[in-house]
């Protein structure tokens, strides 16, 4: 052997040789008894350095394994087939699983219909009807309120518990006027405020809404310093 090959062998023993070089050297290693013997001695050197006491260093296990495997058939591509076959068998497994699940579901539905529907439908129907009526009552009331004619009056109706989410027009007008009174003069004159304030009847208390507005406006003018 030349020195470069020996160096490669040493690096390969340490798993430090590039894979491409390993392929070539592995072929020689498996066939050349001298290289294999050197490889075995590298292992012995490592075992001695690690002080592996109680271990036979002359390769007893290797000799016995080699003898035991001499009667075994060599592995081949055929030996690798089982994994491939398993992969081939697997392709239909998801389909079979889905089919099985669908079958179980169909059987369950059919069984439930055949078992529960005849007797259960009579027992369940009245309760279902009562519950539907209870749920429909508030909705019907709301519908009647919506259809009823709007009174031609600006009297603020009493606030009901159900209409908390709807702000009456009068309250909205009061809020806009009051907000306008406390806002900056520039923003006070926006279109919405102007409309709400100027429109007669939008507030239930026009005098009360006008008074603070002018007062504040006056303060705002006097206030710059």
């Amino acid at each position: 052997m030349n020195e470069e090959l020996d160096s490669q062998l040493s690096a390969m023993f340490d798993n430090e040789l590039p894979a491409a070089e390993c392929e070539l050297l592995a072929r020689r290693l498996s066939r050349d008894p001298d290289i294999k013997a050197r490889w075995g001695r590298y292992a012995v050197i490592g075992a001695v350095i690690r002080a592996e006491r109680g271990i036979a260093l002359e390769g007893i296990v290797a000799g016995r394994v080699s003898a035991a495997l001499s009667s075994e058939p060599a592995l081949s591509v055929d030996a690798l087939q089982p994994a491939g076959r398993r992969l081939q068998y697997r392709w239909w497994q998801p389909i079979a699983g889905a089919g099985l699940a669908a079958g179980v579901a169909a059987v369950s539905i059919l069984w439930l219909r055949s078992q529960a529907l005849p007797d259960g439908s009579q027992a369940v129907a009245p309760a279902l009807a009562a519950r539907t009526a209870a749920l429909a009552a508030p909705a019907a009331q709301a519908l009647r309120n919506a259809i009823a004619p709007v009174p031609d009056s600006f009297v603020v109706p009493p606030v009901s518990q159900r209409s908390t989410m709807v702000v009456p027009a009068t309250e909205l007008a009061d809020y806009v006027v009051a907000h306008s009174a406390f806002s900056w003069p520039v923003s006070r004159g926006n279109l919405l405020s102007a409309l709400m304030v100027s429109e007669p009847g939008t507030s239930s208390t026009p005098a009360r809404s006008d008074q603070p507005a002018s007062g504040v406006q006056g303060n705002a003018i006097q206030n710059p310093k």
Partner: protein
Amino acid sequence: MSADASDLSLVRRVQRGDKGAFDALVLKYQHKLVKLVMRYVRNPAEAEDIAQEAFIKAYRALPQFRGDSAFYTWLYRIAINTAKNAVVSRDRSPVEYDLDRSNTDESYDMQGRMKDSETPEGLVLTDEIRSTVNAAIDSLPEDLRTAIVLRELEGLSYEEIAAAMACPVGTVRSRIFRAREAIDRRLREVFEGGLGRAEELG
């Protein structure tokens, strides 16, 4: 560079029917495997038996090895399981163990084991190997000795050794190779003068 490239290249050869490549793997890992098994059994001869069994199991299972993990990790797992099973079976039938194995299982050839590792000749050879290697290491130049010890004793990679010794990775590779060559020259004399068992594997 893959950390397991050399083992994997040998494994692929075994999977394609090259038994000689498996010999190389056994030669490389036999000592480590026996040492590992000796954590479970104290008797070196029994540890060798278990290691042998683990290697044979590994060979038979190699078609299923896909290289997802490092080969030695996979091999160590097999060895540990084999050792645990051996301990359990021995504890269950401690009396039958020694009586039955020599008769029923060819791999547990007690006389063969005595001839190999427990005879005075075997022990003397092992001691001679050990003393030869230690003497060779002692006579190495400092940089070579440091490199080979960091590699074999501490298990550092070439890159880590290069960082520790403040030299290029190529220099580390060269130092380790030269250290091995120097030790191997003396060791070869022992093997060739002794049993030369490693050569018999080829």
